[in-house]
């Protein structure tokens, strides 16, 4: 068996294991009182795992420059929307807490390391994270009776946060401001690491 097949096998087993520990779909959605669209916006703002992955990916894209930031700005919300539609259509995926935690922990670690990813690498990460978190959004929002408008609200929140943060980071000068970005990444990764412990323990 060659190394590629072995890697794919490990990835499949890891993916299966992660899916096996999928949490139950949450049946609640924030009710802002302003309608489904704003409920979707609030859903992202008040779901820490969603917010952290968007922040981490925006920081990462900003670190890697303008072109990577532009890719992430459009790819992440689109992937989120696609994932949301899939999740709403087949809401059996559940909350997938291990995978969502891993996604922001890895993104945070890459920010902390100031990893020299190519633009395509940043875009690929954005697609993967967007699909995953969108899938969970769709799967958890649909049973609560949320409409497509709520998903559009969530995607708008993702786009807005990515646009603001990635643009700010792209424009940061070298030195302390960029170090603060790396520190923020290490905090996100550290919180993810601790959260993985809580999930493993079942706390």
């Amino acid at each position, binding site marked *: 068996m060659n190394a590629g097949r072995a890697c794919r096998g490990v990835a499949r087993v890891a993916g299966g294991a992660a899916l096996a520990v999928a949490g139950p779909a*949450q*049946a*609640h*959605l*924030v*009710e802002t009182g302003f309608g489904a669209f704003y409920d979707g916006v609030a859903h992202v703002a*008040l*779901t*820490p*795992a969603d917010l*952290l992955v968007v922040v981490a990916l925006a920081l990462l894209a900003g670190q890697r420059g303008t072109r990577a930031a532009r890719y992430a700005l459009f790819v992440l919300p689109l992937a989120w929307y696609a994932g949301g539609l899939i999740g709403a259509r087949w809401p059996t995926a559940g909350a997938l807490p291990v995978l969502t*935690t891993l996604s922001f922990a890895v993104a945070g*670690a890459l920010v*902390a390391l100031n990893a020299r990813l190519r633009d395509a690498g940043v875009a690929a990460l954005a697609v993967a994270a967007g699909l995953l978190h969108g899938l969970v959004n769709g799967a*958890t929002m649909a049973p609560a009776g949320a409409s497509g408008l709520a998903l559009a609200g969530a995607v708008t929140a993702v786009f807005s946060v990515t646009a603001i943060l990635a643009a700010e980071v792209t424009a940061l000068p070298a030195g302390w401001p960029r*170090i603060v970005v*790396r*520190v923020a990444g*290490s*905090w*996100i*990764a*550290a*919180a*993810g*690491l*601790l*959260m*993985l*412990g*809580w*999930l*493993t*323990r079942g*706390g």
Partner: protein
Amino acid sequence: MTNPSLRFTHRAAVRAASIVLLLVPAVAVAHEETGQAAGFLAGLSHPVSGLDHVLAMIAVGLWGAVLGPPAIWVLPVAFPLVMAFGGLLGLLGIPVPGVEIGIAISAIVLGAMVLAEIRPALWIAAALVAFFAVFHGHAHGRELPEGTSALLYSLGFVVATGLLHAVGILLGAVHRWSVGRRAVRAAGGGVALAGLYFLWRAVA
């Protein structure tokens, strides 16, 4: 025609139901995660509640300021990650021997480094800080209050630790002046002395 007494009873029932609903406002803000604010605040306040943790974290920042770039930011970036790894070990039930002693020794060693202005190679400084971070994470990272969000507790805990580093770095900024340099060294000495007290308490 509606009976007036029945109408009165109906109104009273509506009012009573409204009051009961006002007493349970959580229903109105239902969300998929519970205990978020409480979790974050508990995590934020937890590191500050233990003087041993506070002093060691400030000492990390002070030492970083004494060492200067790149240690000044490498240590605060590395510490939370390794501390979280220590917390992960605790959560997985993997024991780390002598956690309280390790925390006390961390204050002694880090304080002594600041006091003596010891400047080892960056990797040695990072390894030393990372070694002690495991004890701090193992001891404090797994004390989640009941009913709070684990993720936000973890985030609050990490943020508070990072802010304590920032306090140390800011205090250490006076190191560039001769009076400030003496003050920073004195602060390091104070942390080391406090560490000795914690060690005595841990082994007593």
